[in-house]
């Protein structure tokens, strides 16, 4: 039955609507990782959550310079990679956004560079990064480094 003559509803009933997000200038990537999104307009905080940045900076008890460097580089890689994760979901629903697309390619490039450098200096995080930089290729190499759940404070 055509219901249009029976009532004068203009909006569809029995359906929910979520507004499409508009592009907003992202946080710097280190702040974005601590907040859980690169988009200030989606950062809807909870009053009991800690406001200050977390303690997820380099392990304070380390005196080993190599570990310190490793952790600083890992922090940078985490921030860039997370920005890429969050941006990817945005682009999945906004594939025609030019600002987002430009940032996407910039982040991909930064991530590739950091992954290669990390493999060269410390140990490989992905198998592809074992051939994109100067990783020593006369050994297997993939099992090197701590497992991520160990916390890397070891």
């Amino acid at each position, binding site marked *: 039955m055509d219901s249009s003559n029976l009532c004068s509803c203009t909006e569809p009933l029995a359906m929910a609507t979520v507004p499409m997000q508009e592009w907003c200038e992202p946080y710097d990537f280190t702040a974005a990782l*601590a907040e*859980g999104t690169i988009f200030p307009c989606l950062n809807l905080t909870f009053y009991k959550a*800690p406001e200050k940045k977390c*303690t997820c900076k380099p392990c304070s008890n380390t005196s080993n310079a190599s570990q310190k460097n490793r952790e600083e580089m890992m922090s940078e890689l985490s921030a860039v990679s997370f920005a890429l994760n969050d941006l990817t979901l945005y682009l999945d629903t906004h594939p025609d956004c030019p600002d987002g697309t430009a940032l996407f390619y910039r982040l991909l490039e930064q991530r590739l560079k950091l992954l290669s450098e990390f493999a060269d200096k410390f140990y490989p995080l*992905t198998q592809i990064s074992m051939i994109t930089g100067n990783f020593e290729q006369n050994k297997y190499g993939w099992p090197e480094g701590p497992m991520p759940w160990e*916390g890397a404070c070891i």
Partner: protein
Amino acid sequence: MFAYEKRLQFPVKIKNTNPDIARLIMSQYGGPDGELSASMRYLSQRYSMPVKKVGGLLTDIGTEELNHMEIICAMVYQLTRDLSEADVKKAGFDAYYIDHTKGIWPQAAAGVPFTSLEFQSKGDAITDLFENLAAEQKARTVYENLLRVIDDPDVTAPLKFLRAREIVHFQRFGEALEMTKDTLNSKNFYHFNPEFDKKMNSSL
């Protein structure tokens, strides 16, 4: 296919052993609104999604939920790795210890084992997207409940991150719902099932 990257999406570096907190956080591994359930929900639903971009979004969010599952497990592991015999006796971790020692196993905070009944894949795009919107809200509530009872900053930092992701995912599923609605007749979104009655949908 999935390939491993040897790092956590958000760093977990917990210094203090705390089996009580571990037992609570474990719910976000194997509980009703946990990350395992989230990942299996999206990765199961994606195959039959009628809008291709929505299937892509489900793949990307389902993959991110695997990262979150790993963060939760790393937290439980680090909170219990130095557990002493005295800790086991005095803390609320004793029942878990009897069955699993310090092994990581998916269960809810109250001990109910993980089950696929905790998520749905219904074969109807509208229904499944509402399931996902609700799931993100339920997980947000759990993270807020955890943030209310936990003080250790090493633990609250990843919890805060994970809570924020629930809100972002809710927004994306809302946008996926809009994209799916755009392919249907707004006079009656329920005239047919866009996943089953494919011939009825000329815009796909």
